[in-house]
């Protein structure tokens, strides 16, 4: 098993774990956590391909990861602010109970 494959499998597993958490946990914050894990798994994928793929001198993978981290940070901030706002409105952060978008 070459290192790239191992890296990819690890990232895939991490992605799956994050997805599982995002799909199964009732707390909105933990859903966000799962999403962060998925993003991190994708970042790992990028680094792995930068490391083991062609043209690592272009630094494409690293730059991408930098931007991805920035975006993830912004997204986490906004998301958590949203959760706060929802919590103030609905008195709960349970995703199962926030159904006003239904229909």
């Amino acid at each position: 098993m070459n290192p790239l494959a191992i890296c990819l499998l690890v990232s895939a597993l991490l992605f799956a774990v994050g997805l599982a958490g995002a799909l199964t946990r009732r707390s909105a914050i933990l859903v966000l956590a799962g999403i962060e894990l998925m993003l991190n798994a994708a970042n790992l994928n990028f680094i792995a391909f930068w490391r083991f793929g062609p043209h690592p001198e272009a630094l494409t993978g690293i730059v991408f990861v930098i931007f991805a981290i920035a975006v993830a940070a912004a997204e986490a901030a906004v998301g958590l602010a949203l959760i706060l706002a929802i919590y103030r409105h609905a008195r709960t952060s349970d995703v199962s109970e926030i159904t006003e978008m239904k229909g």
Partner: protein
Amino acid sequence: MTQNAAPAAWILRYLWLIPALPILAAGLCALLPKTQRRLSATLSIGSMTVSLILAVRALVHAIAQPAVQVVTFPWMQFGSQWIALGWLLDPLAAVMLVMVTFVGLLIFIYSLGYMAHDDNFTRFFCFLSLFAGAMLGVVIANSLLLLFMCWEVVGLTSYLLIGFWFHRPAAASAAKKAFIVTRVGDLGLLLGMVWLYAQAGTLLFYNHGAGCLEQSAVAAMGAHLTTAGMAVSTAIGLLIFSGAVGKSGQVPLHVWLPDAMEGPTPVSALIHAATMVAAGVYLMARVYPLLDHATLAVIAWVGAITAVFAACIAVAQNDIKRILAYSTVSQLGYMMLGLGVGGVAVGIFHLITHAFFKSLLFLGAGSVIHGCTEEQDIRNMGGLRRFMPITFVTYAAAMLALCGFPLFAGFWSKDAILEHAHAWSPSLGPYYLGAIGALLTAFYMTRQVFYVFFGPQRVPEATAEPVESPRPPERCVIVHPHESPSVMTIPLSILAVFAVFLGFVGTPAWPWFQSFLSATPPGFNMHAFMEPGLIALMIDSSLLVFAGLIFGWWFYGRKPIVRATDPDALERRIPPVFHALADRLYVDEIYGFTVIALTRFLSAFSAWLDRRIFGGVVNLISWLITGLGWFDSGIDRFVVNGGFDLGCRELGAGGRLIASLQNGRVQNYLRVIAGALVVLAALLLWGHRG
């Protein structure tokens, strides 16, 4: 129009007026209201008078030209064939025309007096005229089809006139009985007619050699055999004879004639004595060329049996008109016997003489009934000769003529029959039966005359108040019997003259009548009496008549019949026989057991069939349809509606199911996205691996 070669006599061309005028009078009378009595009587009697004049003219013409003359015209076409109708004039038709119109006119005049108190005077004359027209149509018809049509109208008017007082149930059922019994005979006539048409191709009697009674057709039919080995002409003749059996009251279809006495007495006189019942004899005389020895033998035997059968029953009857009715049946038997053994002239001669004296007897009986406040039982009459002299004299003359008293009309005609019967080769049976019948005739007529006209008066004295009689609406207050008005007695007198003297046209010495009918020149020949056996026969028949008269006087004239409830003199001596005869030899009861019971059974069976089977089928169909309706409604409710509802519900459920995907739960959306991602990736990889 085909006509005779000689310059067509206008009487021949206008012969059709003779029946047409009374029918026209009948039509006009039918339109008249009930109050126009004088007008209706005038129309009827006037038309009958004109017909009489024309008939006499026709007789004169027939005397001059005895050969058959016809006028025919095409009537109806079907396919390529034409049915032709027409009329003929020959001696037979001419004498019948004169007889019917003359006797009819006298009876019409008599009815003026007899029906004067009846409300339905106009209806009576309408029916009488219709009858007269139809009977005259039967006489002059040259086509069996036209004869049959007029025959049916005659039967219809007989029904209408017997049931003239239709609100009396006895009259209504008697009319029905007459119609149905004659219908049985008419069925045979119709079959014979159809067969004749099939065989001969034409129903015209005489058509210049092409008619069905002319030589060629008769010979062909005689040669042709049916499957039973009978000649076709015999079979057709027997079928036509069955019509005559019904109409002329031969045994076994005689049962309607006595019941037909429910009609008014002029009706009995005209229809059931002189004319309609004679139509059967006339029919056989008309188709005589078609009858061969076998058929003639059957006719002779049936006639002879009828003569004796009816005479026996007449001995024990107590209703004055019933006695005369059975007497008519008996005399019709004689006519048929004469036709069978001796030919057309013999039978028709008796028919003519019988018409006169029988109608006279009926009219006299009507006069008696009228004078006794509608009493018809002879046991309740008596000694009427003191009160009704004219009636008595004319009645006695007719009675002697009927018995065949020497030198009266009936003597010559009945003697001719007995003479031919005696000379008949196949058998002497009819002769003996005829002789017995003559004896019985004299006996029962004497009995009747003694009951009615002699002895003490047994008529119950009426009270001063008007009597509501059973026959409507006679409401005269009679204290004692009285003579009838002259409008009724004058016809009686005229008929009496004929009853006495008419026979002289047919004596052996001067057989004008027979020669006239057979178109040979008559001659006066006193030596005809010298023929071997003739004088002996005449003496024998006279002795029979005297014997009957003496027996009658012995039983009924010697000791006056004092009370109405006295038993009959004959009844005292042979009660069982008398009772059987009084019960009309149970013929009606036999019919009741057999034919009527069968008919009742069939009608009950048909009713059962209709109710159960056909009704059941109809019910079954209706149940099926109802069930089908239920089924349909069930389908509609459960399948259609239910299916529709179910579909809607399922649609709703599906919608709810799909809506549940949009439940606003983000995690659900995420799951769906994840699932979609998996599927998509799997598809791509799967497609890519190859």
